[in-house]
């Protein structure tokens, strides 16, 4: 069966913070493999005291965790480098989704194999046709990384890495290697194709930033948003999603006058770290023209930037990691369109 190599989550049509598994965005580099879970092996080797092989059954028997985390492709919002950006939320922000992931902490598995003192990175490899692989700093691997076999109460979907995926909370999605088959504990990153040729950020001076793993704080208004239509003036709630790869969302501000003035939105708890967070703000549409914007702050104090600030810091050549403030224009006709922020 021929599949598209990517598809976006229709965020504007969803409520709450959980993305139904079948609507999770997809991005695969070399197809979706069909894997027999009974014979699938996860081998952990390299700079370890004892290389071990884990079958799915072994992993399910280990102490487990269930946590809410978003996954966002670093190419999400790539169209937002142009002033008005994409026409709707699915196109502008749909390479991000949030699930309750269940699995084993990688730290626990590393305890099982015994990591040698000279180790500083982990190379993760998938079982897809291209053996997609990415390197993760050991410090991060020991923090909150999950080897996930469950997603939203069921098995991880094939498109999401069945039977096993790496889940590196808060980091660009491609690091959360799907169909995980091998972890090599190493003294340096492997400098795989997807951390050199791709997923690096070219700067104006010709150098490139590598291993820009963390997804910075971001938010978007999902209602009202591009391609929706307000049928009549009166009360309606402005709703949206905010998330940060560095921690929890501490504040979201909303503007209905194109950034002239801002007011705090209500944030719905619990505020999980590195997870989607819902914000809402009561609004009475007077039938006039309004430009709606949202701006997130995370608990490290980082504030979501404007496009101008991003361009100032990085130049015009970067593709990835665009977390600019997004604007929607509500016209007198009730139509909502993308507009320069």
């Amino acid at each position, binding site marked *: 069966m021929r599949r598209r190599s990517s598809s976006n989550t229709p965020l504007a049509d969803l409520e709450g913070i959980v993305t139904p598994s079948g609507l999770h965005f997809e991005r695969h580099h070399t197809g979706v493999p069909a894997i027999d879970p009974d014979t699938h092996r996860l*081998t952990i080797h390299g700079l370890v005291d*004892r290389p071990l*092989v884990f079958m799915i059954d072994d992993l399910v028997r280990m*102490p487990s965790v269930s946590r809410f985390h978003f996954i966002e492709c670093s190419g999400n919002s790539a169209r937002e480098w142009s002033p008005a950006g994409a026409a709707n939320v699915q196109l502008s922000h749909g390479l991000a989704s949030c699930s309750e992931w269940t699995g084993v902490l990688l*730290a*626990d598995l590393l305890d*099982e194999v015994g990591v040698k003192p000279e180790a500083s990175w982990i190379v993760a490899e998938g079982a897809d046709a291209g053996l997609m*692989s990415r390197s993760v700093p050991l410090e991060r691997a*020991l923090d909150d990384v999950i080897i996930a076999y469950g997603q939203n109460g069921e098995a991880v979907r094939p498109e999401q890495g069945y039977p096993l995926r790496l889940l590196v909370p808060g980091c660009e999605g491609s690091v959360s290697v799907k169909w995980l088959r091998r972890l090599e504990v190493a003294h340096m990153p492997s*400098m795989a194709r997807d951390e050199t040729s791709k997923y690096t950020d070219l700067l104006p001076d010709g150098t490139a930033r590598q291993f820009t793993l963390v997804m910075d704080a971001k938010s978007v208004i999902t209602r009202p948003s591009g391609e929706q239509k307000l049928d009549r003036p009166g009360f309606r709630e402005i709703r949206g999603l905010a998330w940060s790869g560095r921690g929890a969302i501490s504040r979201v501000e909303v503007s209905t006058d194109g950034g002239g003035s801002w007011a705090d939105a209500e944030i719905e708890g619990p505020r999980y770290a590195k997870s989607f967070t819902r914000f809402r703000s009561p609004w009475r549409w007077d039938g006039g023209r309004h430009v709606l914007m949202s701006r997130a702050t995370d608990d490290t104090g980082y504030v979501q930037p404007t496009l101008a600030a991003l361009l100032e810091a990085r130049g015009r050549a970067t593709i990835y990691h665009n977390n600019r403030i997004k604007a929607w224009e509500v016209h007198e006709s009730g139509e909502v369109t993308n507009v320069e922020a």
Partner: protein
Amino acid sequence: MSRRSGLVAAALIVAAGAAIAAESERAGLGHEATAEELSAAGYTVFPDGRGLPQGRGTAREGKAVYQQFCAACHGRNAEGDEAAAA
């Protein structure tokens, strides 16, 4: 953030009876990789050359290998010109 301390605590609590992680701090799950499993698992070649398999070769010899196994997709000079892979 390891669960090891949790396992140790559990072991102490039930020290009198059950064998939960009593002899070892590890859960002891998974099995030691056999030589066949390790070779089937594959390996990483690092930028400093670590991980390279035994052997030697020259660019001239490599060119012949490239023409035979790679050129069909990557083009005659690996420059992405007439490449099917690009």
